């Protein structure tokens, strides 16, 4: 009985030892890497850092170039099904107000089109201020800016449950300045569409 188990065990291990990894550059062309931290329960320190296909499970992974054939049909289909990358929009405001600068009006139209084009969108609205005024007032102003954008999106027919709005006050300046500095680039709302 136990002897039969001893014979069967390596076969079972072999049966599940066929996981594989295909590593590719990201959409911007940067080649990242994947570390194999454990193989078959044992710690390893291997790092795969080239475009390659690797059979997983060995302590020293044997990576092969993707070669002329490149991706298999199933793999190419899988990549086609990846959601689009998150997209970020910046809207700018007049000093001390929730009024958009005129040049940001066109960005609103692009933002609306982007959300409408996505399936199951999530929209994160983050308000910011410059350093004019107190930190407390700027916290409030940044929230009002973010909520103003969110309310506009609601008025355009988007579901509130798709969206969130937060204010970061003067904590995350786009351009570092001294306190009480008027700066148009810092008076902004970032909208991330996923």
């Amino acid at each position, binding site marked *: 009985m136990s002897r039969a188990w001893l014979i069967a065990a390596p076969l079972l*291990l072999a049966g*599940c*030892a*066929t*996981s*594989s*990894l*295909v*590593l*590719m*550059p*990201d*959409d911007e062309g*940067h*080649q*990242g*890497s*994947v*570390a*194999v*931290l*454990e*193989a*078959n329960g044992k710690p390893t320190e291997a*790092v795969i850092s080239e475009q390659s296909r690797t059979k*997983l*499970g060995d302590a020293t992974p044997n990576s092969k170039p993707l070669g002329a054939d490149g991706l298999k049909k*199933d*793999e190419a*289909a*899988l*990549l*086609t*099904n*990846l*959601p689009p*990358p*998150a997209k970020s929009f910046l809207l700018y405001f007049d000093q001390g107000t929730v009024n958009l600068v005129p040049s940001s009006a066109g960005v609103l139209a692009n933002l609306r089109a982007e959300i409408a084009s*996505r*399936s*199951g*969108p*999530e929209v*994160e609205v983050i308000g910011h201020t410059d350093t004019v005024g107190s930190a407390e007032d700027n916290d409030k102003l940044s929230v009002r800016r973010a909520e103003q954008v969110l309310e506009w999106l609601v008025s355009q027919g988007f579901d509130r*449950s*798709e969206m969130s709005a*937060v204010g*970061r006050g003067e904590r995350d300046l786009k351009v570092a300045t001294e306190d009480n500095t008027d700066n148009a680039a810092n008076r902004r709302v970032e909208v991330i569409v*996923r």
Partner: protein
Amino acid sequence: MRGIAIGLGLIALIATSDAAAEIARIKTSSGTATVVRGSQKLKPAPGLQLEARDTLVTGKDGRMAVTFIDNTRFAVGPNSSVSVSEFQYDRTQQKGAMVTQVDRGSLAVVSGKIAKSNRDAMKVRTPNTLLGVRGTKFIVEVPQ
């Protein structure tokens, strides 16, 4: 003693509901596809909010696409079972940790802010391997 135990139970419940925050959303799905949450089986309609420990299960014609709140993106292929067993992300600090388990099938990943936040903050487990993702695009395949 019993009172304390019940009290602790309540705290645990509160902590659990707190932890059950949105981590991702279903973008698209097709064919036979299910989100398994504990004993529940949810239809992966576009916009469905995922929680940590959800499992994405597809049949032979099934597919799902998911985007996480840190911008990580998944495409789950046919005949797959993929769980996000751990997910923590601080939107303000843009740091976190994530463990994804691929029990069978195929998963394409484009990593997001979690993978950039700390070395091996994003891990992927297959039945025989633990991978540390260092910012990239890849496919993991686990044949049945």
